[in-house]
């Protein structure tokens, strides 16, 4: 059964449903009485259950099923919602999110069957003993028929006992209404294999697959788990009439066939559960299943592509533009025949307009609202506030601001970091706030808006702000700045100290003033996205972190330079300035070339050397003046000597492909107007 084609849809839709569940839960927390919300969560849980069931994700289906059970009681008014119940629902939500993440990254939901959580639901919400008791049909007798098995199965079982594994005879009977018996049995086998090793099956696995069985089938399994776990796992599967798990140690139900003894000595080795898959077992009866589960695993590890949901309107727009392109193409063909240059000129202008619009349209297709990232923050703030005993109101604005999908994926962590910082270190405890005459409820604001060619995200709090004196003192102690600098340093520069890598690990700073943990990580991340970050702070009043991000990563402004006959693109963002220096002023210091530029030593790299470019023989090799592009990384600078500047250009970044990963100092490639390729320089590698 190949479900891979539906996997993307499943993940995307589950995420959407979970997102709405999250929102509803947050609303529900404020208004316990709203039965509409309960209905909504019920509906979401039900939808997820349905989807997960279809996809064969039994853990998800089971958990949502329990949620439904619980919510049903709330719906019918038997119990009242309270914060304990909401906490449990939040936990369920977290668990579901984990499952979906696991599905996304591994292609399966994992082994966690959330037994504890389900217990918790039952204890908190259902309170009374509503445990669903497995019906055991009378004809499924307590003493199952004796099984005749080979000696190697016997050996395997004995070995299991020696290693303190449990061996069970698992008997499963399917419901008579079961339509796809083989499929159902397959799920049972899968479930069993997730916690146990099947060493024997009756009828054989092949027969079960070919549906050559009635309603019952039996397995001998060895596992560390106990019979309850097995039972609870199997109970969850639909259309199963009864499950019996008998410990082989207790019940003498095996009858060993002594005919082919001792040939299988030592062939069966027990592994810890985690090693199961990569271990080839040469025991005859198990190898069949092993191979199967291996191939199955391969199949179930699908490639999950990144997808973007696009409004049909945007696609229509694209379509229109493409049709215009076709019109202009025919128009150009016509011009060829009548050959007037004014027409030609007009046509190219028209073409230019279309390509610009087309570019915009395609960019828009890649855009996703920041809402996608922001959505998780209300929950996070709620949890943090509870944990720290602070009263916090989170305000969000501009959720519909759009950013490139790639940026959206990356920006989450830095934002979490900043918000945590604000709440953890910035905002005072309610009592302290009241003393200071502030409102007891602190406000954390998250604002996104677009500004020209970039998008700005601001994280603002009305907490304590950052004490610059403390930072300066710390920097002095750590030797980041000298005592003269300490006197002279401006507030702006002092704030920048926070982003120094050295500060991030300094525990003392955290204890004193906060705002130091990992800010350099945040900065690095944002800079790697082509953005930057600033801090505005005022002591006692709060601080504001301003992140500026490019609208898209795919297109950048770059400076095209020429070295010998080769052309390279240097991202404009990383260029500080362009200047000329005299060859004669370059000095060698410990094998590195430096030059004194504006009274600062500037390391010099020669592009031709870094890229092993063969020097063209020049007429005036005496030429003393060298063109230097000064690039920056944080507050470090390096001068790169190039032969010639071609000009500034908007370039589309293309990857070099998988075959050429990790090429030193190259970030990608771009296709120039004449169809040739220029490589994009990774300036960070010059530092």
């Amino acid at each position, binding site marked *: 059964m190949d479900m891979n084609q539906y996997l993307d849809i499943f993940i995307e839709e589950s995420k959407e449903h979970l997102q709405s569940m999250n929102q509803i839960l947050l609303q529900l927390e404020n208004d316990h009485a709203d039965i509409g919300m309960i209905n909504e969560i019920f509906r979401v849980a039900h939808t997820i259950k349905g989807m997960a069931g279809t996809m064969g994700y039994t853990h998800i289906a089971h958990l949502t099923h329990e949620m439904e059970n619980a919510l049903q009681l709330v719906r019918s008014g038997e119990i009242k919602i309270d914060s304990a119940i909401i906490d449990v629902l939040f936990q369920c939500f977290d668990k579901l999110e984990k499952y979906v993440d696991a599905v996304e990254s591994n292609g399966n939901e994992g082994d966690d069957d959330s037994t504890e959580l389900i217990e918790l639901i039952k204890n908190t919400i259902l309170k009374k003993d509503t445990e669903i008791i497995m019906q055991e049909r009378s004809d499924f007798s307590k003493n199952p028929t004796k099984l005749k098995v080979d000696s190697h199965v016997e050996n395997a079982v004995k070995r299991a006992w020696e290693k303190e594994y449990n061996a069970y005879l698992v008997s499963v009977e399917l419901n008579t209404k079961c339509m796809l018996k083989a499929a159902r049995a397959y799920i049972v086998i899968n479930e069993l294999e997730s916690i146990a090793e099947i060493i024997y099956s009756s009828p054989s696995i092949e027969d079960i697959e070919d549906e050559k069985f009635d309603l019952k089938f039996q397995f001998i399994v060895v596992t560390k788990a106990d019979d309850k776990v097995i039972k609870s796992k199997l109970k969850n599967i639909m259309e199963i009439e009864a499950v019996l798990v008998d410990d082989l140690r207790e019940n003498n139900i095996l009858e060993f066939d002594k005919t082919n003894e001792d040939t299988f000595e030592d062939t069966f080795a027990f592994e810890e559960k985690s090693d199961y898959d990569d271990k080839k077992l040469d025991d005859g009866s198990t190898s069949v299943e092993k191979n199967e589960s291996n191939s199955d695993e391969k199949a179930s590890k699908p490639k999950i592509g990144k997808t973007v949901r696009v409004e049909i309107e945007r696609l229509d727009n694209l379509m229109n533009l493409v049709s215009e392109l076709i019109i202009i193409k025919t128009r150009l063909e016509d011009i060829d025949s009548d050959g007037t240059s004014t027409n030609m000129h007009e046509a190219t202008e028209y073409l230019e307009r279309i390509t610009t619009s087309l570019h915009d349209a395609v960019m828009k297709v890649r855009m996703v609202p920041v809402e996608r990232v922001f959505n998780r923050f209300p929950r996070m703030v709620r949890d943090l506030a509870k944990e720290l005993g602070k009263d916090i109101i989170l305000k969000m604005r501009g959720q519909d601001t759009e950013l490139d999908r790639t940026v959206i994926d990356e920006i989450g962590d830095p934002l979490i970091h900043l918000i945590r910082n604000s709440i953890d270190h910035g905002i005072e405890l309610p009592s302290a706030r009241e003393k200071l005459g502030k409102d007891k409820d602190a406000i954390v604001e998250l604002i996104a808006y677009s500004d020209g060619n970039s998008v700005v995200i601001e994280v603002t709090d009305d907490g304590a702000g950052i004490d610059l004196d403390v930072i300066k003192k710390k920097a002095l102690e750590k030797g980041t700045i000298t005592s003269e600098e300490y006197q002279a340093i401006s507030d702006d520069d002092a704030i920048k100290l926070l982003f120094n890598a050295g500060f991030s690990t300094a525990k003392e700073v955290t204890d004193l003033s906060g705002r130091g943990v990992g800010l350099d990580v945040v900065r690095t991340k944002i800079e790697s996205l082509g953005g930057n970050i600033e801090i505005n702070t005022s002591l006692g009043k709060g601080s504001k972190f301003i992140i500026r991000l490019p609208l898209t990563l795919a297109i950048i402004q770059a400076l095209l330079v020429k070295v010998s006959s080769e052309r390279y693109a240097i991202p404009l963002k990383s260029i500080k300035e362009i200047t000329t220096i005299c060859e004669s002023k370059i000095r060698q210091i410990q094998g590195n070339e430096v030059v004194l530029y504006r009274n600062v030593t500037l390391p010099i790299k020669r592009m031709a050397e870094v890229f092993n470019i063969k020097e063209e023989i020049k007429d005036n090799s005496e030429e003393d003046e060298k063109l230097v592009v000064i690039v920056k990384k944080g507050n470090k600078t390096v001068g790169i000597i190039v032969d010639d500047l071609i000009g500034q250009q908007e370039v589309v970044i293309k990857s070099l*492909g998988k075959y050429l990963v990790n090429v030193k100092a190259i970030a990608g490639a771009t296709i120039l107007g004449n169809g040739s390729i220029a490589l994009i320089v990774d300036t960070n590698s010059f530092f």
Partner: protein
Amino acid sequence: MNKSDATNQYVVFKLKEEYYGIPISYVKTLEKVTDITRVPNAEEYVIGVMNLRGEVVPVIDLRLRFGFEANEKNEDSRTIVLSLDDLIIGLSVDSSSGVLTIDDENIDSAAKFINSFEDDYIKGIGKVDGRMIILVDIHKLVNNKLEAN
């Protein structure tokens, strides 16, 4: 097996004096040699990247890959663009002479021969009308580098 089955068809090309074959299923297009931009600091046999209709495709000089001396590209030179798994890669060869069907019974497995190459990229030798076609193991050719990464 059906004679026209695509699995038995090979794109045949020439390198030095020998003919080589690549299963047609891997071949995306055959291109004349276009502008190639050198990629500094890449392996010696990677001559650079080419623009294949808006896509940046790395190009390997198969001569260098096989340890032969390089040659000047000329009118006959071709780039065979392969697509395997999600990888697109160009192979620069001396010339290409079309597609041949080689049945399995006319392929000798490489194990019979003493390999003249350092790495073992030969999958077998195909015999067609008295010609010998060296069948290249594309996966080995490409993946050795990927694994090294």
